[in-house]
């Protein structure tokens, strides 16, 4: 979008959007993977009947007493460690007070000034197809534990809203970044990187549809090179990473437009409307943000020992960044390929399972990224639902490597493997797809093809190599793609150069 020229009298501090940068900080809420809620024994399982997973504690009934779920704290500490944070030796919980029907107690138990973790960073790997990874360190301000609120239903209900408190009290870790992100694309990669780390840690299901990762954004604009932050606008209600990216792009245009027209940007909270593709201001008044925090008297303070921190640190699995480096050195993959395979843990695991089954790593990487993912996409399947386990794909790759089938035929075999669930060897045997490497047969065929197409054959002879492709194509057609392409190339070149 090109900025519109503004009137001469307007105070216009910028020449164009190119002189303005967007400054973004993200608040990510991650649902921790526990069986029971953070302060009571109700199940966290998604999809239960409305209000089935509730008890006097999460409903905030008088006389009930919350008690911290030990696993929730461990998962929070592990995440803090993976994000290079300092883990607080002393932590406490506080009440965040506000009235809304999704909050049964009229306060949310959260952490104000003594969070689980602080001062960390996440190294974002920004990838562009075929290019080396660009790294950027995004500082993490803090990560704190809190309870989730319930769910309100409005649609199709007249004059009332309905409340389901199953989600109330589900453990959340809120991860707050510093305003270090400079574009919607960087924000997207930050979220992807964070999700990947959470998957490797196995601390969350990371399921966007079920709301197990949610994101709010604080965004402002300023002239490039300025160190002072512009007026901050908070955006809520984005329910996918792409939604975050779109909302940030929209907001950048909106705020830049306001500056160009000489308007003042108000500090406010805006909601992203996915259907309309725009952010909308909220009616709520400014002092609604006065949460009047105070220490939660129902929960005792907690101390985290160095021993505990060391134990949890030792239990951390290999994280995505380390795995990318290992894929580069152990398998000789390109940075981009390693990044793509590692970003999704299950894909990285699948790749390594293929290599373990003696598939060539580079072939395996290519086949997984193009053919396998292509098949899965076109069938609408997740990797976990694939009827082609890693050992079967490895089997197919071995057949290509040892010359039993051509790459072209292999691409026809893979869909059959998806349909039947059979191993590649089986399909090759059943369908008679073994590559023709019988040079005597191919020599005869080459003679016939040359005779049948004298013009292209003459062209090749007189140095027009382009015509060779046509002849190879004809031989492939005759053999239904089963001829060994390398061999027929050699034969044709030999015959036509003599």
């Amino acid at each position, binding site marked *: 979008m090109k900025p519109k020229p503004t009137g001469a009298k307007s105070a216009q501090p910028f020449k164009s959007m190119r002189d303005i940068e967007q400054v973004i900080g993200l608040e990510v809420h991650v649902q921790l993977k*526990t*069986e*029971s809620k953070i302060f009571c*024994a*109700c*199940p966290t399982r998604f999809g239960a*009947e*409305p*209000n*089935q997973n*509730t*008890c*006097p504690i999460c*409903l905030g*009934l008088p006389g009930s007493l919350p*008690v*911290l*779920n*030990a*696993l*929730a*704290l461990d998962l929070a500490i592990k995440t803090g460690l993976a994000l290079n944070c300092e883990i607080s030796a002393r932590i*406490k919980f506080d009440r965040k*007070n506000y*009235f*809304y*029907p999704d909050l049964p107690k009229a306060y949310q138990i959260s952490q104000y000034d003594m969070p689980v973790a602080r001062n960390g960073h996440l190294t974002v790997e920004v990838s562009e197809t075929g290019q080396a990874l660009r790294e950027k360190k995004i500082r993490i301000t803090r990560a704190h534990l809190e309870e989730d609120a319930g769910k*309100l*239903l*409005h649609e199709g*209900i007249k*004059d*009332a*809203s*309905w*409340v*389901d*408190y199953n989600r109330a009290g589900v453990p959340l870790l809120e991860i707050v970044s510093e305003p270090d992100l400079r574009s919607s694309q960087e924000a997207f990669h930050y979220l992807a990187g964070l999700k990947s780390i959470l998957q490797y840690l196995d601390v969350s299901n990371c399921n966007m549809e079920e709301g197990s990762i949610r994101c709010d954004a604080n965004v402002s604009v300023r002239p490039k090179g300025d160190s002072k932050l512009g007026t901050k606008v908070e955006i809520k209600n984005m329910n996918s990473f792409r939604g975050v990216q779109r909302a940030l792009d929209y907001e950048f245009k909106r705020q830049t437009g306001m500056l160009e027209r000489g308007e003042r940007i108000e500090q406010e909270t805006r*909601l992203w*409307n996915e259907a309309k593709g725009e952010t*909308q*201001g*909220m*009616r*709520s008044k400014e*002092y609604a943000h*006065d949460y*009047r925090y105070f*220490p939660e*008297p129902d*929960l*005792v*303070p*907690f*101390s985290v020992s160095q021993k505990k921190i060391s134990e949890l640190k030792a239990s951390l699995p290999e994280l995505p960044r380390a795995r990318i480096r290992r894929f580069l050195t152990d398998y000789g993959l390109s940075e981009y390929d390693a990044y793509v395979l590692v970003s999704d843990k299950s894909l990285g695991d699948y790749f390594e399972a293929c290599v373990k089954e003696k598939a060539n790593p580079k072939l395996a990487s290519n086949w997984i990224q193009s053919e396998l993912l292509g098949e899965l996409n076109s069938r609408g399947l997740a990797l976990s639902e694939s009827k082609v386990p890693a050992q079967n794909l490895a089997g197919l790759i071995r057949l290509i490597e040892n010359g039993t089938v051509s790459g072209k035929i292999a691409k026809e075999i893979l869909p059959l493997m998806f349909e039947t669930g059979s191993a590649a060897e089986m399909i090759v045997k059943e369908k008679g797809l073994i590559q023709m490497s019988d040079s005597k047969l191919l020599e005869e065929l080459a003679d016939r093809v040359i005779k049948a197409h004298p013009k292209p054959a003459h062209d090749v002879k007189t140095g027009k190599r382009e015509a060779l492709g046509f002849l190879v194509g004809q031989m492939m057609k005759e053999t239904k793609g089963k001829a060994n392409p390398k061999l027929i190339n050699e034969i044709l070149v030999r015959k036509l150069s003599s």
Partner: protein
Amino acid sequence: MPQKINIDQVAELARLNLKSGERAKLAADLERILTYVDQLQGINTDHVTPTSHTLALENVFRPDAVVPSKIRDAVLQHAPKSEGAYFKVPKVIGDVS
């Protein structure tokens, strides 16, 4: 005396409808409390550990184990309003201006 308390805002945050007589009285009470807190602020606490809790207890946990409460239907019966398995509240959508 300078006013520290905006009694209308405090009432709004607490969702209280105060009568005019109550407003003046409560404002005065809260002012007195704040004056007392100011007095406390004057004390040197450099060598006192901040305290958020009066019990000599810490690290009270429960294991991550599920115990179904089975209280839903009883609670719904006692709710001011319910509809099927849901609690029913006044319409709260319309936050967007």
